[in-house]
């Protein structure tokens, strides 16, 4: 099949403003969009720039806006995208070059949430025990690959970049609901703020965007409820 890729191009070293590059290519319907981008880079325009690594939706490198919604380029097939495909960088971050954006602020937010197990009680010699039910409690949020699709698709985040964003909360949830973690109080202090969970307006764009099918809003909702339980 033939598809046209409309890609937003911008290289601040050369361009005054972003422009649209149009590329017509032959491809298989079962090709990933990443394959199509690679084709353009390898055969039509070597300067096209984006991140990629694993090519099967596990490393989280190639999050971008595809036909107006945040997706991983390696996780959507051309047959689901139509004849003309628009590709833009993620919203809400500084564009460095073409589809590649500055993720530092995003990752700093993740790190600010103390995303590590906090324990005070002594370690047992072998493993800490945890029932399969307790393990299941936070299974969903362990899947996060920090791709940024959710935060960048969140209107509350566009409005105000001070919001820590859904990805950071998802990772806080992962520890908050881990029966082994003893850092609940510290973490709740971080989350119970204007820029923490309360900026989430349950818009669900994060859920729609998450390539790992994490129910992000639900996780945020559970954190809100946990704060409520703690404080009320």
């Amino acid at each position, binding site marked *: 099949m033939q598809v046209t890729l409309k890609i937003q191009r911008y290289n601040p070293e050369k361009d005054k403003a972003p422009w649209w590059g149009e590329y017509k290519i032959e491809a298989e319907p079962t090709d990933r969009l990443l394959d199509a981008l690679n084709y353009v880079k390898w055969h039509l325009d070597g300067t096209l720039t984006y991140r990629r690594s694993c090519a099967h939706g596990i490393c989280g490198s190639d999050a971008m806006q595809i036909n107006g919604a945040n997706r991983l380029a390696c996780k959507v097939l051309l047959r689901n995208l139509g004849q003309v495909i628009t590709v833009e960088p993620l919203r809400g971050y500084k564009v460095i070059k073409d589809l590649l954006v500055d993720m530092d602020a995003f990752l*700093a937010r993740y*790190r*600010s949430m103390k995303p590590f197990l906090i324990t005070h009680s002594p370690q047992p010699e072998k493993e800490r025990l945890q029932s399969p039910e307790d393990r299941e409690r936070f299974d969903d949020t362990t899947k996060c690959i920090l791709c940024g699709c959710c935060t960048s698709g969140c209107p509350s985040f566009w409005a*105000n970049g001070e919001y820590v964003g859904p990805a950071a909360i998802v990772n806080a949830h992962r520890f908050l609901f881990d029966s082994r973690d003893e850092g609940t109080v510290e973490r709740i202090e971080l989350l119970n*703020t204007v820029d923490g969970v309360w*900026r989430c307006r349950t818009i669900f764009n994060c859920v729609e965007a998450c390539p790992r099918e994490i129910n992000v809003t639900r996780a945020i909702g559970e954190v*809100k409820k946990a704060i409520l339980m703690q404080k009320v």
Partner: protein
Amino acid sequence: MGAAGSPRPESGIELWAWMFMRVSGVVLLFLALGHLLIMHLINNVDHIDFQFVAQRYATPFWRTYDLVMLWLALIHGTNGVRMVLVDYISPRGWRAASLASLYVVSFILLTLGSLAILTFQPPLMGP
């Protein structure tokens, strides 16, 4: 955002604001929709005049009803608009100024409305 990206510590007021939005929302659901039903559907603006209001305010029930609705709606709305302003206005000065104006306007109107409801003296029945 601080250098490490950690969120600013907060008094915890957001939690209460969040709770209030929901509780007041549920109460308003009945009050506001009831109000609309009575004022705009069962009666309609053609029938509403001084006389009509006077009749209603003859009983304390409607006064209380309106007073509670006024307070809840105004505080709910003010907090809602506060959220909107905090979303869109980041520079500290502008944010403080816009919030201050919002609070002042809301406070004045809250006083004005409450006085109107509480001090209204229905004239003796008659033409």
